[in-house]
């Protein structure tokens, strides 16, 4: 759809397609379908060779004289290690004896998270709320009070972002901090196992389940939508 706007304005486009069935319907002018799961459009993280192969194949389509054209990327790249879909909270049973103090646990995670940032040139997926990691205990407290049914808000919430969306951003930041902390501890760990650990073994995972439950109990559609986003 975007491609169509751009081509109408005279800009050549090529689309990386993950769902062939959708691309066949939308018919962008030039598209390369890739045999990878969602989240892996260019193949694999930290694999410049496969990323360049996908990129060059896609850019090659820009020189096609006619369209629409939908080409398939050769299916010769192993994706066995990549789960076809991510693990949701509902698919993981929590273990017994999870520590019940997410603030204390978060303080520990923050140290591993610092390690992750140090190793990755400062790159982190954390930061959607703008609240720094050093003040994240306040966010945890806010989420705990929300889960307990308290009528609560944070002064850091921008006026344009409503409460359920702000809670979703807080949850995304909490997950980013924990996921990166886990990858700092176990760099080879697959995404599926990181999600199983988060939902199955951490106090933060159990806190977000309770946040989800309160959001999901609401009749308000935007609260219900946030419930799904918090628990994935």
């Amino acid at each position, binding site marked *: 759809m975007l491609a169509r706007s751009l081509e109408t304005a*005279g800009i050549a486009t090529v689309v990386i397609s993950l769902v062939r069935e959708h691309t066949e319907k939308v018919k962008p002018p030039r598209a390369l379908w890739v045999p990878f799961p969602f989240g892996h459009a260019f193949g694999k993280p930290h694999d410049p060779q496969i990323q360049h192969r996908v990129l060059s194949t896609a850019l090659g389509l820009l020189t096609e004289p006619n369209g629409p054209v939908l080409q398939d990327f050769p299916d010769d790249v192993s994706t066995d290690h990549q789960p076809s879909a991510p693990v949701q909270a509902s698919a993981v049973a929590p273990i017994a004896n999870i520590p019940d103090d997410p603030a204390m646990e978060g303080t520990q995670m923050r140290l591993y998270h610092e390690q992750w940032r140090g190793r990755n040139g400062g790159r982190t997926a954390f930061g959607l709320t703008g609240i720094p990691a050093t003040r994240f205990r306040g966010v945890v407290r806010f989420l705990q009070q929300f889960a307990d049914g308290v009528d609560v808000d944070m002064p850091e919430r921008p006026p344009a972002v409503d409460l359920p969306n702000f809670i979703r951003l807080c949850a995304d930041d909490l997950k980013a901090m924990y996921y990166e902390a886990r*990858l700092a501890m176990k760099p080879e760990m697959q995404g599926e196992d990181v999600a199983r650990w988060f939902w199955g073994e951490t106090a933060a995972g159990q806190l977000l389940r309770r946040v989800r439950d309160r959001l999901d109990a609401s009749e308000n559609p935007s609260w219900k939508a946030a419930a799904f986003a918090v628990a994935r």
Partner: protein
Amino acid sequence: MPRLDRLPRILRSTLLTFPAQVNDTAPFAPLQMPLSACRLAIVTTAGLHVRGDTPFIGGDPTFRIIPSNISAADVLQSHISLGFDRTPIIRDLNVTFPIDRLRELASGGQIGGLAPNFYSIMGAMRKTSRIEKETGPAIAERLRNERADAALITPT
């Protein structure tokens, strides 16, 4: 893959019933120069934005500008979808937004260069009329003013 026959049933049916637009034909702007002279932009539906910029919320039809000289450390993702693993992009932004690979192609002369700005919108949009009528044309006009010759459109 995501090959639909390998996905969990719920995700598969969500995708199969997704209201994708149906078109019979496509507008087509042939590239006017060889790739080695072409100024490229990335336009992504991955819900990416610059750190500190307003995050996307579900159904948000607006766009964000990402300068093409941005450091990967300053790009965040605020996509709402349940359907993808976050760890690949946490590990390496290039798996969705291949800025380092494009810079390599530009310095090697395989492409002419990068347009000054890249653009980002939210993906998995069910209501797309504003994307079609406002956001898409607005991005197209900006790209044209910034003398982009071609755009690579990437999902997450």
